[in-house]
């Protein structure tokens, strides 16, 4: 028990808790702001503009373009799926 108290005291001496609080907050707040900015409101516009650009080179059906933004933990995946019309 004494060693535990001593350890705690040492830990406390090494790093004041306020410093730890600040570091943890900086990380959590930066993630939070990223999440906020990743509002998916822009997806329909992105989809529309993609269709416009691709149509310049390949004839595609606008309904066959699928854009999805998926979040898994700290990783985000932008998935783009375009079905090209059969050439026959």
């Amino acid at each position, binding site marked *: 028990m004494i060693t535990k108290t001593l350890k705690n005291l040492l830990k406390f001496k090494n790093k*004041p*808790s*306020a*410093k730890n*609080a*600040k570091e*943890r*907050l*900086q990380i*959590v*707040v930066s993630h*939070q*702001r990223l999440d*906020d900015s990743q*509002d998916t409101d822009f997806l329909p516009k992105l989809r529309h503009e993609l269709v416009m650009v691709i149509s310049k080179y390949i004839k595609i059906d606008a309904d066959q373009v699928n854009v999805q933004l998926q979040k898994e933990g700290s990783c985000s995946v932008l998935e783009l799926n375009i079905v090209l019309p059969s050439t026959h």
Partner: protein
Amino acid sequence: MIKTEGKVIVVTSGKGGVGKTTSSAAISAELARRGHKTVVIDFDIGLRNLDLIMGCERRVIYDFVNVIQGDANLSQALIKDKREENLYILPASQTRDKDALTKEGVEAILSALRKDFTFIVCDSPAGIEKGALMSLYFADEAIIVTNPEVSSVRDSDRIIGVLNSRSYKAEHNQEIKKHLLLTRYAPQRVKRGEMLSVEDVQEILAIPLLGIIPESTSVLNASNNGTPVTLLDIQSDAKAAYQRAVDSLLGIEQKETRNGWTNKLMDLFRSPA
């Protein structure tokens, strides 16, 4: 003379229990004491408390929701403070129906109040649900009440995000003026490295500082008696701090008060007159 419209100021935080209602009451009372016609509105539908902090709980007849639903008019619901002639309170309803707070209803009441009052202070409920969103939606300025503690700072950051994206001003490409009010501050604990400093919190939230309210026994004493901190008879550190915050809100240059430690120090060197 052209009468300018009143300013809507929301007092918000995200987290509960950090001092929104205490601050709303103290700041409103101080604005009124200085001669500005001020109304303070409780947006915490279902859990009203501003009336208790202001000491007018026994005078509530009609409330915010009654006015929205047309059961009473605004002048019937407004409670005139007995201490300050420029101070009015619009209490929240005790109804459990949060949908009673409609955007159209809130807008109608706020625009009516803007014509009559210089300051309209909106005391937000905790959280980011309807009541909180309604209290900040039409705001011109926001006071973000924050404790030097991790969960409060994180929630304040969330609320700043909401102010920047889901308010009327944000939707019209304008910005709500934001102020940081740091409450329950304990300088001794900061010195020992046990508490986030004002600089730490400012660095994280990146909004200008309105004031620092020290942890103070006078706050509980004030609420026990239903007196806003700024209307206490006795001088207290919290009262002085709220007065400085109001100076700052009104754009008055900060000067050291007689209680300031620098002045005490200066007094030591000052030769007797």
